[in-house]
Every structure is written in C-alpha cells, then in structure tokens.
C-alpha cells in the first residue's frame, strides 16, 4: 500500500528517486486514465486507476504493477507522451500513483502545461539517452538525483543533461509554479485589458 498522497507545494529544486520506464511513442491521456474514471468531482481516487486498461491487458506485467517499481517516482517515457485529451486527470493520476517528475523524448503541449501547473517537472532528453536509460539492465534500480538548478540528473555512474523550458524551470525554483497568485498580482492590468478589447464593446450580452 502506498503512503498517503501529499501534493507538492512551494519551491521544487531537487527530486530524488527511483526510475520507472514506460516504453512507447504517442501514449495518449485516454490510456493514462480511461474516460470512465473521469466521472468524479475530485481527483482523489485516480491514482489507483492509472493505466487501468493497459494494466488489465498485461495482467500484472505492466511496469506500474511490478513490485520492484512500487516506490518509483521518476517516469521515463518516449516521444509525444500525453497526447490527446486535455484531461488533467492524467497527470493527477500519475502524481497520485507516486510520480514526481517525468523525463521523455517529447511531450504533448497540453499535457506538459498540465504537469507544470500541478508541480510535476517534465524534462526532455535525446532519444538516444532515453533509450540508454530504458535499456539499462539495472534500470529497475536506477536511482536519479535531479537537480533543477543545473538541469542535471545523476546516478552512481551516469550524468544526464536534462532540458526543460526556462520559464518552467524558473517557476519551480522560485515556487511560483502555481500560477493563480502570480496572475492575480496583475489585477489592474487585467481590468484595463477588459476595457480595451474591441469585441467586448460590440458584442451582445449573453442572455
């Protein structure tokens, strides 16, 4: 049984943990969390259902079911991870299962911003390096120390230069990745904008 989930808050500078590899391109958010689990008004129970259908098909041999992975926190994926539906339920389910950071060849845009918005840094690495990590025989026990300040991931005998959008990196380091409060700081500008948009003047009100 996993320990109780606590969402990340504040500055995120360092993530240490065991890796879990999930091989495949174009893994969409319907696979991460199938639509029937979206019938909920909060995200609390999603962790149990992450990859439900894929896991069911593989009957125990899916990476998310392997005993050796049960404490993993760093997910290693291939290209276009998280494509498809905008459902934030997908990163929420991963996070509630235990994932704290994702390293991949590439991510779909909306999935990426959803991850950033809830405090999961997503890093990119070349295809070659990803495959190296994924093929690493000792992978099941590969522990990485991710240092956001220098965008580096280190293990006993491996150093990886990670890439992350500068804006995301800064947000995590300063603890301002939870955007609402930053956005609210500009209240006056928002009001001004509202007053100068041409279409708000000529539109009929929504009745």
């Amino acid at each position, binding site marked *: 049984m996993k320990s109780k989930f606590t969402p990340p808050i504040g500055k995120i500078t360092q993530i240490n943990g065991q890796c879990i590899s999930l091989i495949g*391109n174009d893994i969409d958010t319907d696979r991460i969390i199938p639509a029937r689990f979206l019938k909920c008004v909060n995200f609390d129970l999603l962790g149990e259902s992450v990859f439900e259908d894929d896991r069911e098909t593989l009957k125990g041999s899916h990476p998310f079911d392997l005993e050796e992975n049960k404490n993993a926190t760093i997910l290693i994926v291939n290209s276009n991870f998280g494509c*498809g539906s905008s459902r934030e339920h997908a990163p929420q389910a991963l996070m509630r299962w235990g994932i704290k950071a994702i390293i991949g060849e590439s991510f779909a845009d909306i999935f990426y911003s959803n991850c950033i918005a809830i405090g999961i840094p997503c890093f990119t690495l070349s295809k070659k390096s990803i495959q190296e990590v994924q093929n690493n025989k000792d992978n099941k026990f590969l522990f990485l120390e991710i240092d956001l300040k220098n965008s580096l991931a280190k293990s006993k005998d491996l150093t990886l230069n990670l890439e992350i959008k500068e804006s995301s990196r*800064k947000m995590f380091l300063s603890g301002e990745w939870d955007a609402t409060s930053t956005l609210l700081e500009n209240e006056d500008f928002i009001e001004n904008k509202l007053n100068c948009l041409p279409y708000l003047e000529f539109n009929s009100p929504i009745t």
Partner: protein
Amino acid sequence: MSQNTLFDKVWDLHKVSSLPGGSDQIFIGLHLIHEVTSPQAFGALKDKNLKVKFPERTVATVDHIVPTDNQSRPFKDNLAEQMIETLEKNCLEHKIRFFNIGSGNQGIVHVVAPELGLTQPGMTIACGDSHTSTHGAFGSIAFGIGTSQVRDVLATQTIAMNKLKVRQIWCDNKLSKGVYAKDLVLHIINKLGVKAGAGFAYEFAGPAIDELSMEERMTICNMSIEGGARCGYINPDEKTFSYIKNKLCAPKNKYWDKAITWWDSIKSDENSIYDDVIKLDASKVEPTVTWGITPGQSIGINQKIPLLDDLSPNDQFIAEEAFEYMGFNPGQSIKDTPVDVCFIGSCTNGRISDLRVAAEVLKDKKVYKEVKAFVVPGSEKVAIQAKQEGLDMIFKDSGFQWREPGCSMCLAMNSDKLIGNEISASSSNRNFKGRQGSPNGRTLLMSPAMVAAAAINGKVSDVREFMKK
C-alpha cells in the same frame, strides 16, 4: 519568429503582461466550461477563497456524460447525475450562464458556442477540452486547457502561456466530389504526423480552405490537436461573417459594421511571416480512413495498410502496436473491412451539414443487418433543425437509431460503448486504444458520408460508389 499573422495580432492584443521566466499572461475573451473538467477547478477556487472574476465571460453546457437515450432526471447513472448537479450548483452559485438539457441550446460545447454566435474572430477562447481548437475556424485563437488553468481563468480571466510558433498549411486546388473536410484533415495529420504541431498554432489557408463552409472549417480546426497543434485557425472572410450574423450573441445593428471592420483588420497580412509553411494539393486527397491507434495512421480508401518498411523508423514502433491491437496485417486493404458499429456524431462531425450528407447517402437504403448504427446530433439546435428537414426520418427508416445530443460514443462516458473488440466506423476524432468504451474496442475514423456507406454495406466502403448511381 512569426509576424503580422492573425495569431500574432490576437496574441498581442490579449497580452496582459510578460511573466517572470518568459511566458505571457493572456486574457481569455471567452471561457467555455463543461461538467468533466470544471468541478475540481471550482473546488480549488473554494479552497483558495477566490471568486469568479468575470462570470459573464464564462458559458457552460453539459455534454460528455449525458445519456443519449433517456435524458430524464435524475440520470440512471449516479455518478453522471452527481456531475451535472455539481455543474448546476457551481453555475448558480457563481452566476454563470448555463445551457442545460432542454434549454434548446445544450449540446457539445464546441458545437454550441458557434451556434450561439459566442465564437467570433479575434477572440481568445479557452475551455478545459482539447478540441477547443474547433473555434479557430472563425479566426479566433482557441485552445484547450487543463483543470488548473480552468481555475486560473475563473479566478483571473487570464492564463500563463508560452507564445506559440505559427505554421501555415496551404491547401491548393479543391477537394473532389465525395471527399470532405474530414478526409483533408486526416490527410494533413498523416502527412505531418501526430506530434508535428507541438509548440505551433496551425493556420489553414489556400483555395481549398476558402472553398469550405464554416462547418467544414470547424472540422479542420477541430482536429488540429490530433496533429499536436494546440490551436488551429482560419482567417475570417465573408462566409465567417454571414455565419455569425443574426446569431443570438452576435453584434447587432450599429455594432455589426464596426465588428466587420475590426474582424477584417485582424486577418493575417499579405506579407505575414510564418515560422514554417507547408503546401499540399487538396485535389489529390481521397476518402480517408484510419487503420491504427492514432489519428495519423490513415490511408486513402483504395490504398493498402503500410508495410513496416514503408514507415519511418519513428513510426514503426506505434505501427507494430497498432497492427497487434487492431488485428490488421501490413499490406492489407482497409476497404471491405467488416464493421460492427457505425457512429455519426461528435464535435468533429455532428453538425447539421454532416447529418445532411450522411442522410443523402442513406436515403432509401437500409443499414446492413448485423450493424448497430446510431446518430447523435451535436446539439439540441442541430437536432431540431434535422427534424424540420426530415433527416431524423431518413436515419430511422434506414435503421439508424436517432439519439439525443451529447458526446456519446466519441469517448463513451455514457452507456454508448463498444463491446469487446468490436470495430466501429466513426465520424469522431480519436481512434486511441479503448477510446470508445471497451479496452479492446477498435475505431476507424472517417467522414460521416463514409460512415453511412459503411453502415449500408456492413464494411468499409468508398462512398463515391454510392454517388455514381
């Protein structure tokens, strides 16, 4: 970096501030919400003790979870009932306009907003739904957001976002008879790939795009996201303006001319600069069908499913996965593949023109005896219009079930689901594993006309053969 495109102009106009770190704070002109991605956002507002900043800039409807057979309340599905009740409560509490079932304006959020005249050129539009790109058909910058960003829009009417690059996709010539916007967009996604759009807005342009009706343009922009582009748009023109004219929320009287002048001014300039330009010949596009598990895995109706060697190394991996999941062999024809279920609907192809096209194919014909076929209008307005035109009777006479509006088997959050490894011919937008409600169900995406043809023959068919007769 792009310059003077519609995207640049609309972005600059809506930019509130540059945020530390390099992203921009963007004002959202219109915010659309539905029952699936909003409850947690309202919950977060409550936790942070925040109010909805401009409730009049948000509009709600219910679409994903609604049953399409019996819509009487309470819904049979308790969880679905709980979701609609939560949305009703949140809208009431925060004074948000909600188009509920029976209002005459309920339906799939991306069908409803254009019908109401809410969607207009030059706006920024956001919704907790990836197919928000649909609204770009009007020359708005419209994109899907996650629940945390829904919370941000509710609380501040803005979001933090990195500016996108702009790729123009220039479509020469025009589509031939029996080939539709759906075929064109499937073709584009196949050519460019499902992740090519990451970091880009797509501008669709050229004679083939100019030729399309507004509803067809919505089909194109709708599927931008399937090509990885968070937003896709088309510069507004006379067709755009006349579609909007007289809609409920359209500019009226003295404001109309003002609106047109402004809408004209936000088009991409003749000498705009794009980050990338791609050209293709629309006259070469055939009726297109997907054979795999991503919307990029498609072929023309008379082509064969590719051999592994025909594909780039990057695409081989997912192709192998697709062959196994779909039970298809490389090199086999897609034509004549038997289908179990035919579904016409969704925000891609559930509009009145889609129903008209399908009905024309189905008129005086019968659905193949072993096929289960049903049509789900995209909105109450579409349903009413279709009934006025007698389309519902054509569908019913042919053997299609006529349903109430909603998302239905596009994502199967209601009781409309594939069973086991059934194959569906579907006018929707995603053929992902398990998308239509069964963990091993299979989806073939195609135009509504092609779904109708498949329904009659009980197998994937070339709709053009129905047109010759």
